């Protein structure tokens, strides 16, 4: 009961708080990076379900051991016949406890979801067209890359995605993001590269045909200066060629 009450209270607080985050989120320059938030929530939910799982498993194991048939013991069970009040109690209380936990998880999930969907205003916006089987990025200045997403460290990156042919899914495990791209719609995702000099795998997470498992790319994180140099050079190159 105690745990349930705490969860219920926590859930209420979280719902209110998340509404607050929603309202305050716009125009707020502070960047809420979802990736560490993901790790945090994952740990929390895993602990939550592990506790539930162990409780149920221990209870089951205890019953199995305690009520096994022993020589000379009873040969039929004597499970209780519940009174109406007890029967209803055995519904109401578990329902209350389970729902409290569900709302608690949902509220936390919602807060994190908001940071996944609210893209910081100060961002680099890149167009992505996916196709069988490559990722084609176009930068605001016309610079164009394939299977290599070159980004500056410390700046939120927003991808606006569409597809030439089938479904594809731009999955960057290191940044804990993925979203489908498809013909006829524009979808988006964003992430925050932090460490310059690192490379991160981009891989396709929507079955898109024979070579689906080979549809891979890289996010290449540069320092802001390096990035600037590369960006301007390839921007002018793109202008010349067009």
């Amino acid at each position, binding site marked *: 009961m105690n745990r349930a009450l705490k969860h219920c209270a926590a859930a209420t607080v979280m719902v209110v708080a998340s509404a607050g985050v929603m309202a305050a989120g716009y125009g707020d320059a502070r960047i809420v990076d979802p990736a560490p938030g*993901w790790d945090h*929530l*994952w740990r929390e*939910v895993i602990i939550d*379900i592990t506790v*539930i*799982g162990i409780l*149920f498993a221990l*209870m*089951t194991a205890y*019953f199995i051991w305690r*009520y*096994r*048939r022993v020589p000379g*013991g*009873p040969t*039929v*069970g*004597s*499970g*209780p016949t*519940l009174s109406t009040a007890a*029967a209803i109690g*055995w*519904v109401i209380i*578990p*329902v209350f406890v389970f*729902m409290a*936990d*569900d*709302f608690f*998880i*949902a509220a*936390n*999930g*919602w807060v*994190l*979801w908001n940071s*996944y969907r609210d893209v910081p205003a100060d961002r680099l916006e890149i167009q992505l067209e996916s196709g069988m089987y490559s990722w084609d990025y176009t930068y605001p200045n016309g610079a164009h890359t394939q299977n290599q997403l070159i980004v500056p460290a410390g700046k939120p990156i927003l991808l606006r995605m569409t597809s030439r042919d*089938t*479904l594809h899914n731009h*999955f960057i*495990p*290191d940044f*804990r*993001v*993925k*979203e*489908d791209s498809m*013909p006829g*719609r524009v979808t988006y995702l964003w992430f925050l590269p932090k460490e310059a000099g690192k490379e991160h*795998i981009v891989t*396709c*997470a929507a*079955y*898109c045909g024979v*070579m*689906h*498992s*080979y549809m891979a790319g890289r996010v290449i994180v540069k320092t802001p200066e390096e990035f600037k140099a590369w960006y301007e050079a390839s921007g002018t190159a793109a202008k010349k060629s067009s």
Partner: protein
Amino acid sequence: MNLKEWIFTTDHKRVGVLYLIGSIAAFIVAGVMALLMRIELSSIGPTITNNPSSYNVWLYAHGAVMILGFQIPALTGFFANFCIPLMIGAKDVAFPRVNALSVWLFYVGVILALLTFFIPDPPDVMWTGYPPYSTITTGNTALYTFTVLVLGFASILGGVNFLTTIAYMRAPGLTWNKLNIFVWCVVGAFILQLIFVPVLGTAVTLISMDKYLGTHFFDPTQGGDVLTYQNLFWFYSHPAVYVIFLPFFGVLFEIVATFAKNKVFNYKAAVYGGIFGIVLLAGEVWVHHLYVSGMVDWIRVGQMVTTLLISVPVGLMLISLVGTLYKGSITFETPMLYALGVLFLFLIGGLTGIPLAVTSLTVHLARSYYVVGHFHYVMAVAGTFSIFAGVYYWFPKMTGKMYNEFWGKLGFWVTFVGTNIVFWTMMDIGVKGMPRRYYDYSQFPQFEGAHQLMTIGAVILGIGFAIALLNWIIGAIKGRPAGNNPWGSMSLEWTTVSPPPHGNWPTPPAVGAEWTPYAYGKS
């Protein structure tokens, strides 16, 4: 034995046995596909085929046949057919010929699915069949469409038949609140089938129309929309997992009550809260398969809440099931071992659904091996174990003979070990980023060891299942006579001879006011 009386039979028990044979055959074929996939994945790069298409066809056949050809027919075909008229004290189902049509259509569906291995350009659209790929592939999408349509139609016929049977043909005195929980579970499952299968039928018909008849349902350049397919598909296919879940939980209830010699704990909570709670919620959660598909945001958040709430009715059923052990007198024959195994393994499967239900966590987990691990725990482990438990449990009734207890238990322990090796490892590498439906994981060399471990686990698993299958075959041929009620169960199906004759009872049973299928210690 008269072969004609088997093949063209309209008797529910024989129809049930035909369903069992067909679905076990489907299980073996799809299991062999799984082994091929596992061997292919045991090393980076090509292992036994250098053509990714072969892998994709195996995966398509594995998923589609396991779900549509094995689990749904075994649960709503075999168990429902064999048990329900016996459990409600009826001579047969309401429409025996419709029943025969449904099993025949099931075989047609399985034949269509198996044609995959014999035709040029086999279907390679995965069991989900998403367009646009399914409408532009050179593979035979029509075969996928017709497989689904035929099996779906078979299931609708079954649903109409059983709901009518249960509503009108119960034995005198057998009121709704005295039904076996299994019967209730089948009611729930078939209500879901009747409502949702037509939607699936429509969805797969539309992709074949787009591909072959030139329509534009999913073609955005002509005003169509690719996402509608995913919505229609999951609008059925999420409830479909409860079409699997409900009957297998029903089987567990029967077994646990019998081997604990105990009444079901809080029966009404399990039926009206659990089963009907699931039926009510099942249709409102499908978007959890589309969390990363580009749906509008508000619906993703809304369905996160409904998905999480599914844990409430499932939890109620679990409490009733575990509570049935309380103050029981428990023995551990093979069916009970499998059933108790499920009690633990289903917890893993069900609870790992919780992170998936959380929209923001799924942003990382979706389409990864974590998902594959989750649904193998609930379906391939909990579901298959329950089916095996049920077959062992009703084996003496079905054949009149007894299987071998030693090999039964051995088979259980081997599978128990194998499953956990395979499917636990899947969840682990999934969280670390391994995407599903990959023929080759050369981008993720760090997972090679885990994949090898899973391949070994799959072989162990296969051996365990093979032991069980052989045990049945040998038991059916030369097992010792089992008697009419070897488990000492109270349920009606055990009051007739084993195997039951055509018509089930010389004089149909009637039940008294005190009787319930779980009234142990009263008679």
